[in-house]
């Protein structure tokens, strides 16, 4: 995706170089998230682990009705893990942006 599309909509249109002068440099230096290293500390594992524990807890429940909640918990666990990775990618992009504009 063009990095310009990550900008706020209002900023995108207000900061274009309509009169032919290039937009300010700091507003253009939005990093490419694929090039930026993903800091390990920002990966939100604790949240997915908590959901994992919740799933295991349900497995231990002796009645048969526990089967459905387990599958639901697993699904939620998967979604949250994916979400956490996406959030961490955004965070790293924002961090790198701050560094480059500093």
């Amino acid at each position, binding site marked *: 995706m063009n990095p310009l599309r990550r900008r706020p*909509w209002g900023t*995108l249109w*207000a900061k*274009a170089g309509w009169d032919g002068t290039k937009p300010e440099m700091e507003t253009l230096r939005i990093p490419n998230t694929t090039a930026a290293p993903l800091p390990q500390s920002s990966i939100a594992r604790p949240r997915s682990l908590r959901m994992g524990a919740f799933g295991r807890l349900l497995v231990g429940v002796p009645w048969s009705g526990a089967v459905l909640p387990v599958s639901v918990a697993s699904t939620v666990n998967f979604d949250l893990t994916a979400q956490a990775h996406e959030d961490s990618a*955004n965070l790293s992009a924002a961090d790198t942006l701050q560094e480059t504009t500093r």
Partner: protein
Amino acid sequence: MTSATSYVRLMNGYYSRSDYFTADLEKGTIRTPVGTRICSLTDDFLRGFRSAVQFECGKATDRVFKSCGKRWGATFVDRFDRELTEHFGVPLQDMSAGIVERCLDEAFRFHGWGKLTIDLKDYDSGFITVETRDSPMPAVSGSSDKPSDPLFAGFFAAVFGHYAKTELECIQTECPSRGNEASKFVVGLADRLGNVPAWVKDKIPHATILRRLTTPAE
């Protein structure tokens, strides 16, 4: 920005909601969730309407359509802002450009105005390319020597001028009625697009026009 985009990511598209068009059979009306009345027009009606305007306005037809497009765009952008801000709970200006562009494209498709693409390749030089496919006006106008969608040229000038907070001009450079695949428009400041109508008249391709606009004069 991060919190706004995170929130928006969890929402469904505004135009894909099942109750976007609500029909009242007794009154014979169709309305959007915020009460805007929708008018459904056939191709035959549009063809007749276009012919009637051409008959009444003659050479001024394109100017009339463009002026209508500007007024329509100004009311549309007001409604678009209000509806999406209410739906997502985030001011539209703060939402990421990719999401708003997707919503704008959805608005086009759901209202039957075609498929919209915004090209930001020449953003730094102050020009934006807008492309529409399957747009209603070229579809009903038949083959023509000149671009046949001044209505949407006016529309885009008003919509993007609203967000740029300055008066912008929009000129159609390619059109299916002249044998092109899609309609292409260039958006920029009026005084920088001064030569474009002459180039369009000479059937200069869109890419060449943009190259001429973005290359400094020697």
